């Protein structure tokens, strides 16, 4: 737990989400990297219609911190990163981390568009093709370049240590590697980054023991 300096009490963290990685996994990776205990609540679909009514925006993930509910996956991951010292050291570094997370979020949303929202099978395939032929390569080549601007690209995305940008990146990587296992072959620094995050102390153990879900 984390000691609040003023009140010398451990904060209680509860993360509410479904039983999959989805938009809760970056926060879970960050808790794991810090060895910070939390309740990893996984809601069953039958519970959902009633469950959502008590959530601020009727959506998950929600992070409850000593009873205060924070929703929105990116806001949650940023908060966990802040509490565990993985948000970036200076204001400017934090902004750089934020911008990379936003870039990853954009791409994940575009992928989600065809996976979840496109019902027509033909259009789904068209969008998937456009995603893998245009959207994703553009994004990955920007990111390979951005990674290389940070100490030659042999560390993490921003600054000297792991930040929530790396956590989000691993989640995206896990997803796209399922479709194309060789997706990173044109991007050697990004490929090495994925391995670096996977073997990060705490994350490594979590990856070995986390529930196996399709997404």
């Amino acid at each position, binding site marked *: 737990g984390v000691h609040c300096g003023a009140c010398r009490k451990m904060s209680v963290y509860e993360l509410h989400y479904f039983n999959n990685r989805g938009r809760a996994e970056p926060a879970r990776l960050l808790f794991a990297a810090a060895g910070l205990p939390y309740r990893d609540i996984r809601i069953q679909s039958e519970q959902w219609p009633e469950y959502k009514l008590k959530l601020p925006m009727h959506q998950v993930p929600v992070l409850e911190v000593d009873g205060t509910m924070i929703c929105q996956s990116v806001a949650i991951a940023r908060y966990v990163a802040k509490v565990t010292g993985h948000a970036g050291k200076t204001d400017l570094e934090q902004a750089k981390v934020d*911008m990379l997370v936003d870039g990853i979020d954009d791409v994940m*949303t575009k992928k989600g568009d065809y996976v979840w929202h496109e019902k027509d099978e033909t259009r789904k395939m068209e969008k998937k093709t456009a995603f893998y032929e245009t959207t994703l390569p553009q994004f990955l080549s*920007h990111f390979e370049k951005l990674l290389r601007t940070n100490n030659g690209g042999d560390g993490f995305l921003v600054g000297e240590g792991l930040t929530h940008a790396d956590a989000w990146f691993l989640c995206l990587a896990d997803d796209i590697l399922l479709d194309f296992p060789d997706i990173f072959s044109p991007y050697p620094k990004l490929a090495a980054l994925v391995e670096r995050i996977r073997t990060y102390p705490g994350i490594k153990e979590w990856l070995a023991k986390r529930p196996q879900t399709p997404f």
Partner: protein
Amino acid sequence: MAPKYKLTYFNLRARAETARLLFAAAGVEYEDFRVEFGGGPPSEQWKELKPKTPMGQLPLLEVDGVTLCQSMSIARFVARETGLDGKTSLEKAQADMIVDAVEETLNKIYATMFGTDESKAQAKKVLETAVPEFLKNMEKLAGPDGHFVGDSLTWADVRFFDLASEMMAKHADLLENFPNLTKVVDTVKANSGVAKWIAKRPETPF
């Protein structure tokens, strides 16, 4: 001496206006650089600039030799620099979640404006339920004193004001049944920096 901050965006409000409103609210000087917006095919100016940007997009904020992109990361940074991002880590997270919710809704609105006829029609249907739901949730989170977070102005209020004022230009009665949200909008509007900016900012289509 040149201002510390250079904000680059098209000659539009859209995705840069929150940052501009924050600078205005805090009375902080910045260079408000506007790239020609063709309205159709990209302008020559944008074609030249685009490959030099981190992710091929605008807005950008240049500060201390660093170029930031992503509109909300920029706005959050400006909010932090101007003391408008919330007082504690938890308050900052609460401000973040409000801003994220606004962004979600804004993207749904953009989906009705850009795309194929079919995707736009589908997006319009989504918006019909999404907006009332969004306003209902936000009304609960706003509280009666005109602020989303804590007891003073944060960028969450400014961001919401930005979206709401755009929507109210077409639907004046948008917040008629939402007194808390109306209070937030009025509080931001009454900020002298914001009021001055709105009176003098360039007229643009959106």
